């Protein structure tokens, strides 16, 4: 059965602040959903709720019809939803291979250490990090840390990945390579992904469907090209005057 993550009318309050006021998104295995919105619109909060790092105030999150909201993070990972961190957080004292292997041992697969190390090797060649396999994670460059973050999330065996700004902070020449790499891996492995991203080029290239949120609400969704021309979206990003200006 192919995995399907459904979030319905998810709301989250932090004290009196309504960070999310009803967002619904469906992510299916094999498809990539882009989630965009201005700073502070609630994107990262939404990912945290889907990953189980926090509980929604109301609304439901289901994976294949089974409620996952309220479950602890490690259970959610076990069911097949994994998240990357916006600022990569590798296990610094471990080698790159060990970083990935630990995810294979504890994620949805529960691999034995030997098998997990083999899995890690395969995944590392997939993301192009073979030469760094035995490097201690603390010594990696930002670009490599981002790739490791991705490899580690995949290694959990998750069928739905939540990718939090994997392309942020990359240089202009790293960016296209990185976008191609993610696209290639996604097609090859066929997982579903919810991609939170500021880099428009990445969103437009990768996504099959884009959801735009502002101040915790969905203001537009649809095919990537349609969404970026939606006046409401332009207004949210750039202000009213630009949106009304003749194009």
């Amino acid at each position, binding site marked *: 059965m192919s995995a399907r993550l459904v979030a319905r009318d998810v709301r989250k309050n932090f004290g009196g602040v309504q960070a999310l006021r009803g967002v619904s998104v469906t992510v299916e295995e094999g498809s990539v959903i882009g989630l965009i919105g201005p700073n502070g619109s609630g994107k990262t909060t939404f990912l945290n709720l889907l990953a189980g790092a926090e509980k929604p105030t109301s609304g439901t999150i289901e994976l294949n019809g089974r409620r996952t909201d309220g479950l602890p*993070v*490690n259970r959610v*990972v076990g069911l097949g939803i994994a998240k990357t*961190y916006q600022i990569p957080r590798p296990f610094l*004292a471990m080698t790159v291979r060990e970083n990935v292997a*630990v995810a294979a041992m*504890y*994620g949805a697969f529960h691999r034995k250490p030997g098998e997990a190390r083999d899995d890690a090797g395969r995944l590392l060649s997939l993301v192009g990090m073979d030469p760094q396999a035995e490097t201690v994670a603390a010594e990696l460059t930002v670009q490599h840390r981002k790739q490791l973050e991705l490899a580690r999330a995949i290694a*959990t065996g998750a069928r739905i990945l939540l990718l939090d700004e994997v392309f942020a902070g990359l240089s202009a020449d790293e960016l296209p390579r990185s976008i191609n790499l993610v696209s290639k891996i996604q097609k090859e492995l066929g997982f579903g992904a919810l991609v939170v991203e500021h880099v428009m080029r990445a969103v437009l290239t990768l996504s099959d469907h884009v959801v735009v949120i502002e101040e915790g609400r969905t203001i537009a969704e649809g095919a990537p090209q349609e969404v970026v021309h939606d006046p409401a979206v332009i207004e949210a990003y750039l202000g009213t005057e630009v949106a009304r200006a003749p194009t």
Partner: protein
Amino acid sequence: MRIPRMRFPTFGPTLYGLALLMVVLGIATPFLPIVAKVQLINFLLFVGLAYALNFITGLTGYVSFGHAIFMGIGAYALGGGIDRLGFPPLLGVFLGAGLGAAFAVGIGLVTLRFRGVYFAITTLVLFLAAKNIVPEISQLGEGGGIFMNLGFQPLAQFYTIWAIVVIEIGLTYWVTHGRLGYGLRAIKSDEDVAKTVGVNASRLKLSLFGISGMFTGATGAVYAWTLSAVLPETGFDITFSLRMLAMIIIGGAGTLLGPFLGAIIVYVPYNYFQTVQSLLGLQLAVIGALVLLIALFIPTGIVGTVRRYVPFLRRYIE
């Protein structure tokens, strides 16, 4: 296919070395003079405590300042078991282990939610509370302690603590060399991230705290047995918390050999100073200074430092 380099060798010379040493001690001790027997018992008590604390502080990074609480519980379990229930000492040690584990799980359920310095302070506060409550219980001597009149039983004591240490070493090896070892290193490195790759951090920490409490309780019971008495000051002795920490910091926290090395380094001055009138009472100052130096200059302890700077020994020392 290229065989991946393992961070820890699968067949540990360290384990073989320790096993051999323990076997030799186990065989030779009955033939040693009485003074040496007593010395070995006291030394192994230190080793037992070091490995016990290593399970939680060494492997997960949670620094427990209050571990002497479990020694006290073990000591009073032995005292109460013998005095009130007519237990033989060995059964008292089992009771100490059981209660040590039970209290550790109970305490851990609450305190392991705190991290870093908050956890350390909480354990210290709990120690102070326990020190003022447990010895005052009327069935446990009402503050006057319990005198057990057990006579001199060096061999029984020796083999009890010997067995505790052997089990601890075996368990440490088993925990660090499999799936659990990876999960624990992940927790020690970044607990939140460990959870996001599926590690059930709460359960793992609680299990290790329980194991740690069990061995500390058992060792505390044997310690009380060697004194043939349980007093509030010897049962709940904060300096043991400090010694335990000193041993694993000096030797190398979270390693297999570290607690043993640390125990030697802390035990020798401790023991020697007690025999020299003019140095009496200085042992903690010396150990404290040593810990400071290690923390400042070689924070990974002896084992960590050797592994880092002497690649040739990396295969043999873990």
